[in-house]
């Protein structure tokens, strides 16, 4: 065994070398998307927790040290030079959510949702009004609270991390709650473990990321359907309380540890299987902030798709969702690496930029800066990528951002597939288990050379389908910028759909 490892490691190194030395180098991520750095004022420790853009194009960034900074000119070509920084507020308790409405900034602190206002126009907040403190904290550092922007009904969605990320020792820990601007508090979903971010898709449905740990085999993106149970049972102890607060539906049964997610989801109707699993290490290790591309093409070809950050790997991942059997599922793809610190908040703007904030305090990251604020800009060139991935009854359909070379795309040797899932258990995390290696029996390229349909013998419901399209080339002979795709196949669509 040992010799095999050795060979693999070194052969990879050897293989890499000639590629990078080739005369006509392959394009890299940098050719399509560029990271633009902000220069954070000296002596400011901006461990970014949340980002909000107000209607007057001011960027607000909150920090884990409790400050909120407002930044003018955030879209400047060189923000390191032209952005203007003002401290809007300080002294808050680890703000991991920012939203704005009617001249107020809404900040989700550990123990409450607070709205802030600069009433005398000196650029600094002077009113700090509690909107809701209906949940509780007890002094445990893990009891984080991540807040969303406003939804179309005027609610901020807040996901409340468990105590120590294992138990629920304070009220509503392990819950997603909604708070209206007037303070109306609605417990919404149970089963949260350790969120890293929260946001909406283009249809306004709310999602959050949860992290590998008990009852979470790996990090994932989960749909916060009101009334659903997201998988970690400890917070269910607040169910009676939540019922008083008008949460509909009965308390979910406690899942059986050591089972599989889809086995339990058959049994427990409220249990919401993750829409996307991010395979551990392969995609990331700490899924965090979420936003969707609302730029209508100004950010490249991925309109309405979700971008999800990873703190450990300092990356942004891309997610394409579809609904099968009435529930979201879909595929995730690598998108952009190389951010300065551990990515936590992200915010996509209508004019086609993606703001990314970072911190690696307490949790290390590939990006080695202790904190960072960056902006991802599209260069205008379209990368050759998988555009969308759809589950079919007997396989998958891929669409691409460029026309494909029908010869390589119809060759089944261009594709590699394996499937696996995770143990759904109370212990921390899970290895990948129940591996299958189905055969790809055909790959048929559409007449317009824009998509390919592969038939798989056979797909396994409840498994991640781990695909590599290493052999597929574009019409111009380019390999995919990211040939990997991981589809979370909770449900197999019926034939013909």
């Amino acid at each position, binding site marked *: 065994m040992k010799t095999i490892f050795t060979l693999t490691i070194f052969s990879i190194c050897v293989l890499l070398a000639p590629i990078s030395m080739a005369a006509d180098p392959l394009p890299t991520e940098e050719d399509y998307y560029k990271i633009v750095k902000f220069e954070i004022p000296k002596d400011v420790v901006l461990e970014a927790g949340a980002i909000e853009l107000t209607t007057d194009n001011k960027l607000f960034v909150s920090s884990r040290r409790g400050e909120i900074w407002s930044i003018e000119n955030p879209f400047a070509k060189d923000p390191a030079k032209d952005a203007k920084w003002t401290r809007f507020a300080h002294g808050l308790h680890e703000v991991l959510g920012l939203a704005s409405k009617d001249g107020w900034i809404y900040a989700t602190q550990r123990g409450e949702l607070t709205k802030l206002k600069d009433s005398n126009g000196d650029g600094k*907040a002077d009113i700090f009004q509690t909107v809701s403190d209906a949940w509780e904290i007890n002094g445990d550092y893990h009891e984080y609270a991540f807040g969303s922007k406003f939804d179309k009904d005027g609610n901020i969605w807040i996901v409340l991390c468990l105590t120590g990320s294992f138990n629920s020792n304070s009220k509503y820990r392990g819950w997603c709650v909604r708070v209206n601007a007037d303070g109306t508090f609605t417990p919404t979903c149970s089963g949260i473990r350790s969120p890293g971010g929260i946001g909406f898709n283009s249809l306004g449905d709310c999602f959050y990321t949860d992290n*590998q740990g008990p009852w979470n085999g790996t990090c994932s993106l989960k749909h916060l359907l009101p009334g659903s149970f997201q998988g970690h049972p400890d917070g269910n102890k607040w169910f009676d309380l939540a019922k008083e607060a008008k949460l509909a539906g009965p308390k979910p049964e406690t899942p059986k540890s050591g089972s599989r997610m889809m086995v339990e989801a058959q049994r427990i109707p409220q249990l919401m299987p993750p829409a996307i699993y991010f395979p551990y290490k392969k995609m990331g290790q700490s899924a965090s902030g979420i936003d969707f591309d609302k730029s209508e093409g100004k950010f490249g070809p991925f309109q309405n798709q979700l971008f999800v950050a990873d703190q450990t790997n300092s990356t942004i991942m891309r997610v394409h969702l579809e609904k099968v059997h009435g529930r979201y599922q879909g595929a995730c793809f690598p998108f952009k690496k190389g951010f300065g610190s551990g990515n936590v908040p992200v915010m996509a703007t209508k004019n086609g930029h993606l703001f990314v904030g970072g911190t690696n305090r307490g*949790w290390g990251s590939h990006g080695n800066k*202790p904190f960072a604020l960056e902006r991802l800009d599209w260069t205008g060139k379209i990368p050759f990528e998988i555009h969308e991935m759809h589950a079919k009854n007997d396989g998958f359909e891929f669409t691409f951002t460029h026309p494909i070379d029908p010869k390589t795309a119809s060759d089944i040797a261009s594709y590699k597939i394996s499937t696996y899932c995770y143990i759904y258990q109370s212990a921390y995390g899970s290895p990948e288990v129940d591996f299958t290696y189905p055969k790809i029996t055909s790959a048929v390229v559409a007449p317009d050379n824009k998509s390919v349909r592969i038939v798989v013998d056979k797909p396994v419901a409840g498994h991640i389908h781990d695909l590599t399209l290493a052999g597929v080339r574009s019409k111009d002979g380019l390999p995919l910028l990211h040939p990997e795709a991981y589809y979370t196949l909770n449900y197999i669509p019926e034939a013909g759909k």
Partner: protein
Amino acid sequence: MKNKFAILPLFLLVSFVIAEAASAADAIKKPIVPGFERFSKDKDFDQVQLGLLLLGELNCTSCHDSGSITKGLIQSKQAPLLDKVGGRIKPEYFESFLSKTHEVKPGTSMPQVNLGNTDQEKQANAKSLAHYLAQQAGANEKLNFDAKQVALGKTLFAQSGCVACHAGRDQNAREISNVNNSVPLGALESKYTVASLANFLDNPHQVRPSGRMPAVLKDKKECHAVACYLLQGAKSSTKAAKVLNFEYYEGSWTKLPDFSKLKPISKGTASDFDVEVAQKPNNNAIRFEGWFKLQSAGKYTFHLGSDDGSKILVDGKLVIDNDGIHPHTVVSKTVELYKGEHKVEVGIFDGGGDYSLTVEIEGNNLPRQPLSGICSIDEKTAEASGQTPKPETSSQPTVFKLDTDLANKGRDLFASVGCANCHALNQNNKRIPAMIKGPDLLKLRAETGCLSENPQGKSPNFALDASQKTAIALALKHLATNPQSPDDKALVNKTFLSLNCYACHQRDKIGGAEEIRNTSFVSTQPEMGDEGRLPPALTGVGAKLNPDWLKQVLEQGTKVRPYMMTRMPRYGSGNVIHLVKALDKADPIEPVDAIQFADSAAKVKSSGRQLVGSKALGCIKCHTFNNQKAEGIQALDLVSMPQRLKRDWFQRYMLDPQPFRPGTRMPAPWPMGKTFFDDILEGNTKKQIEGIYVYLSAGTKASPPEGLSRESIVLVPDKEPIIYRNFIEGAGARAIGVGYPEKVNMAFDANSLRIALIWQGAFIDAARHWRDRGVGYQPPLGDNIVTFPAGPTFATLSSEKENWPTITNKEQAGSFLSYKTDDSGRPSFQYKYADVMINDFSVPTKNKEGGFSRTLTLESKSPPSQLFLRAAVGTKIEEQKDNWFLVDGEYKFRLPGVKKSILRESNGKKEILVPITFENGTCKIVQEYSW
């Protein structure tokens, strides 16, 4: 069984049950060899190896000459050394153990020795041997049972590693019987005293040199605690514990009354379903209530006996109705119960005459026994309390009297019946020689001698079961082929089997924590997942660890993973030292070529240091460094790495950790072999890895990397106040700290709506919350910290005599609304209590002593009556000049403008209350503090 019990008088039954319960695993007779028990069920496992394992564990070669059989094939377990055994083991134990070996110590590898031809002879010989062994006196230091040590003993037993091989105790201090593959401990209390058991635990190899029982405990104190835990079941301990709640009623009935409509005369706790708790002999009723836990689901029979009527309800459902006026009548009924906690309620009444109650349970491995024996007061006490039984000293006096004549007889028997074959016992510095010789090992045949159904004559009876006999037969057959000595891999496997290393460690897909024990492996850092809790897999460990380190681990144990509660125990050097060489050879690693650095040696070192630091790879974010804590999880100390790890392994592991430790959280610092740092050591991955290894090779002398120390972050208010919302010690989880440039500070508690602390000088050090993950509460940094007592600032009281309320949840305190900062950045707090809006604004006073002037402005459209402000609480409140009051000599306050205040005693303290009177819906109070 049931019938037999039924005709026994009750008192006999009870005593029988207690004696039986002590050896819960009464079904086991065969010898329990954990490796065999676990792996013989696995069809793919090499059964020959398991047979050889048994030949060693049962010490067959002590009677059967192994002749030319190659060394290493059988690793024999030596029987306990019996010098001074009389000092270690209670004298009463010898006789019963010798005459009923398998019954008294279930699972023992000691065979039942044939002590004679008739029962009488056997009995007499057992007695003689017992006296002989008791004569081998030895001293024990004085160590008594200490109930306070039981809880610690329980934790140590559960977490340090004992449960890897043994089962723990249930809530009634009985050995849990359903944990598979456990080496039963049997009725320890009849064998050991606290002192002798503690002594044994401290150094098990002194009497059991073959290391099957390793030394896991750190010191005498831990040994004492575990001994107390294991021996807590001694004597009448369960009687002493209160396991039931009861309510006592009086009245005259002919049937059980409806308790829900009655008010009890008294309530209390009881140790049994016993009518003794009644305050008078007749015309009363008692309702008992408790919880019991079943280890398995199945059918259970309840036996309810009473004079007069009684009923029993389990989980709220009526199980037995034994109502009405009658003499003591037992009614039995069988019900299906699930595994886990059940609530039991028993009601009984007496209408006159005799009065009695018995409640028993039986079924599913539970012999018939009083139900109270497995009851506890509530669902949780069973786990949490660690009952406090009576100390052992209250037991009956020793009845054993040594008879030297018998002992002399025993000495002869010791050799003649075969004890001396296995057990070393020195007389006049010479081991008593064996007198029995069995056939040579290679001449043994299945189903004869020890292997026959009923061993006769001198053949001892090991009570082997069929699978054990089959495995032994296979092993004997294998030995007959004159096999070669095991290679290094096989030798490792053999040792792992006999020492049961597989109970904790996996190697080459064999072993690892069994599912039933898995949860016993715990970590101080649950976030590390299985890596932080389960002992590491040992696949390829010979390639990984330096032989010197491995030797140290094997001989002395190790604690390099301080977060892992399970310890690597000590097996005794002689039993494991061969593993150092065997593992090194069994797990070869291909060397990585030597590295030629362009840089100087000093530069290589400093580059390694740079890489480890927070501005490069940030290894110190997760790994401790020379005992200094990391920011996040506290993974293995970096400075221990080169001492532990082979350089070639380190080079390969750092490139890609996953293949070596599947599932590890250790990221690949050089993904795909590429570096993030082109300017360090020529941007060469191998050189960078080597640089780290070289740097860390200085061990504890390695100079600390950048970003290691947690420097303080003192918040200094300069022109404007600094606000700090965080976990502040004394002000709660929703504290709002305010530091003023005037060098006075306060912390407002937004949950209980009060100023919780005021202090002078430095404000606060934010490093605890801002340097790493932010664990815990931070106290104020300055001086003269005044902590105000808990409780709300305002309350409505029905009278001036009513105690000031205590707050149990934040809603009772009112609601926190907001704070606003003025032009100088000073916050005023707004909150609401009973329809009153309160504005609470403090400003530092300018006098030289320092202090605050606090203005409380109240507004209400419907002012409540009897609303009070509690201005001060103290043991001593003294009035001083200028209207100041001194509280406990600590701080002064005054209430300028307040016309009426009340000094009162409440809850044993002095309080000053200010009644609030509203004018036009408002009220304003100023309170000045100085200290």
